């Protein structure tokens, strides 16, 4: 991508050597594209890998979701994403969120094996686990303002707020709207529109 842009610029400049400002104003389109490209630089390197998409999805989801008030301290300016159990991300998360902010806060990634190690965090990612394990986790969290995202379809019904699933090679979401709202989250309708809304099924 970079190479292509450089080539493009070179071609343009060779064709029409001009002042830089002039160039910028004339090729505002191009500048915009470059800027956008830099802004989403991480995307450029992760074309298809599933977990790259999922990693980015955290940031995107948080665009549509407001955490309950008083979730963020005045002093604490970190947005903590906790990955429970066996992480499928490798170092993708670190790479994606390196120097990147969610909700205007620097992002910190925490990996835990035991739920009791759960730090104060905003997103808890749960990989594919057994359902009774999930129950323990949910009991532990117990209405803390943490967005629980599961990597397994059907978990949202089981008590998670959001669960990932793939449909037609695209990442889709199940959202347990009632559970989230009763936990104090507000969800933008835009997200709800493109998601599957589910309700908690009590077993």
């Amino acid at each position: 991508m970079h190479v292509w842009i450089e080539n493009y610029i070179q071609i343009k400049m060779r064709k029409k050597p001009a002042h830089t400002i002039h160039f910028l104003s004339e090729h505002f389109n191009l500048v915009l594209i470059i800027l956008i490209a830099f802004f989403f630089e991480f995307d450029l390197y992760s074309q298809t890998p599933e977990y790259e998409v999922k990693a980015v999805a955290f940031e995107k989801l948080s665009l549509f979701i407001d955490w309950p008030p008083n979730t963020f301290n005045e002093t604490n300016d970190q947005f903590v994403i906790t990955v429970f159990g066996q992480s499928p991300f490798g170092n993708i998360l670190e790479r994606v969120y390196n120097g990147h902010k969610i909700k205007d806060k620097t992002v910190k990634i925490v990996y835990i094996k035991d739920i009791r190690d759960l730090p104060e965090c905003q997103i808890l990612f749960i990989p594919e686990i057994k359902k009774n394990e999930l129950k323990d986790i949910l009991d532990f969290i117990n209405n803390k303002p943490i967005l629980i995202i599961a990597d397994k379809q059907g978990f949202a019904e089981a008590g998670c707020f959001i669960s990932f699933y793939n449909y037609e090679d695209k990442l889709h979401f199940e959202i347990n709207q009632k559970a989230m709202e009763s936990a104090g989250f507000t969800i933008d309708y835009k997200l709800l529109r493109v998601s599957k809304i589910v309700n908690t099924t009590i077993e």
Partner: protein
Amino acid sequence: MKRFVFKNQAIKTKLVLIIMSTSFIAVIAALITYISFDMAGIKNDLKKNALLNAELVGQYSVAPLLFGYSDEARDILSKLYSIPDIQDACLYSALSSEIIASYQKTPDKSFVFPSLQNESIIFSKGYLHIYHVITFKEKYCGAIYLKISAIALKDRFQKNLLVSGIIIFLLFLIVYFISSRLQKLISVPILKLAEVSENLSISQDFSNRLYYSGNDEIGILYQQFDNLMFQISQRQIERDIAEAKLNTTNEQLHIELTERKQREEELKQSEGTIRSLFAAAPVGIGILKDRKQTSINSYWCKILGYTEENLLGKSTRMLYENDNEWNRIGEVLYTDLKGKGISSVESRMIRSDGTLIYVILTIAPIQQDNPSSGYLGIIHDITGRKKAEEALRISEERYRFLFEQNPVPMLIYDRNTFKLLAINEVFINHYGYSSDELLSMSLPDLYPPEEKERIVELAKTLQSRAYVGEWHHIRKDGSVITIIVTSNDLEYMGRECRIAVIIDITDRKKAEEEIQKLNQTLEYNVAERTAQLVSINKELESFSYSISHDLRAPLRAIFGFSQILSRRHRESLNEEGRQYMDYIVEASVRMEQLINDLLNYSRLGRKSLDMRPLSLNKIIDTVYADFKQRLEEIQARFAVDNDLPVISGDESLLRQIFTNLIENAITYRRNDVPLEIGIHSETVSEGYLLKIVDNGIGIPREYWEKIFKIFQRLHSEEAYPGTGIGLATVKKAVSLLNGTVWVDSVVGQGSTFIISLPPNKNQNGKPS
């Protein structure tokens, strides 16, 4: 050119034009400004609206863009269907700037969505193209492109133009109305000024003043104009005074001049008069000194037949026959002159060609006191008059002789007093009065008392030559004579008179009366004799009718019995007896025929006529039927025109006419040729001509009239049998139909009987 046209327009028109064009420009400018602002506003609204739409759709599409859900995105775009202005739309993904969803209101595969551009709104070809960046919570999510129809803009523009047009039109009317009123504020005072100036130039009266209440430029103009007029009127007064003085002097001079001229003119004229009188007078004028001709006019020469050179300076002796006459004239003239100052004498003179002329010579001294200055002599040629007098005398003698020696009594009387002025000798002899007695009588004295008044009345009205009519005169012995008079105007002894020629018709009158008496007796005798004849004729007719009628009975007896005798007892008779018997039978047959014909003839006209329109063709058809067998036996040809007219007539008369004529043709046919009978008709102005033509033996011309008389036959009974009544019957029948019949014939070739019948009274007689 145009400027000049405008220049020549009336001030009213100019003002109206100025106001109107100014208003028009202002309105146009205002409208243009308004429309451009309005259009800009609309455009702005359109843009805002479009941007709003883009933002709205963009926000809806945030999640699908972020998560790459093209189906969702397409679904959202499809909702644009509810905004009819949006033609095309597409969404660009944030990552790849690729189109992830598109929308077309009317699917058009050829349409290529543009690649992503920076945030912009572009108008192009009636469409609004919007590229709008979608951000959500300050995060770039992608971009949207909308293509929106700008038809609203166009509509609005058209609407604006229409409204502007109407406004301009209305304003045009209003401005025209107002300006044509307001222009009067300026034009009226100026026009008034113009009018006053124009009147001034005509009337030259500068004492008038203009009044204007305003203090504007027109007020000043009026004031200046008034001042100017005041000055002019002052000057005019001064000029008038000077002019008046000048005029008086001039008039005096003029009068003097005129008088002098008049005097000169009068002098010239009198001199001219005398000169022209001298030259043109129809008398000879000459100036004589010592009996010599020192100056003469052309008439003098003309009378005497000399040229002027031959006479000038010559003595007047040459004009007279001899010395004695010359001396006599000299003595008479000059002696007479001493007493009267003018004298004249009649004399004879000799012309250059030797002929004598009669003249009256008159002379007068040119200056009364000084005889040596000469005399004015005038010669008046009286030869013509002398000759006329002579001719008159001769004529008068001739007419006097005619009057006096005329064998008819004549008289001349005064028109006014009716006094008898002259009568001739015959008159005196005829009437027995003496000449003196008659000359003391007046015209009415000649008439008997009952005619006196009438003749005076009549005589007053008579003019020029007139036949006065038949009157009576009384002679001296008291006997009355009848006369006829012719009179004529005549001037006799200087009086208005009439001359009357009198013819005594007393004897003629008597003869006429006798003839009249005889005539009357004759007429009476003729009428009496005619009546006798008519009655005898009638008697005769009825007698012949009854005779023939009564004859039939005995004849029948003779005929019948002789036939019976001949049939039954023929054998008992000898040859001679049988012959006599045959004669009797034959004679009785002929007698029967004769009586029948006679009866027919005398019956004609006894019956009243039954006149009605009849077709001649039909009548001839029925007649032909009777003859058919006989005609066929002798192989005759019978040709009738198909278009014989329909005439008004009596059927039995017409039948008799044709029966007799055909019978006639058969009887008098030639034996060597077959008989041909033709019947033709002709329509002429007097009615119809019917022609019955045969090719028989013909009739010599001397018998053409005779044959129509009863019992007239041209041939012996043996040669051509007949009674001699047939054609008489035809003639009688035709005359009963108011027609005439005659014959035209060539002996040995045939005859043509021509019947002329009058036209139908009711019908036009067209051929049926």
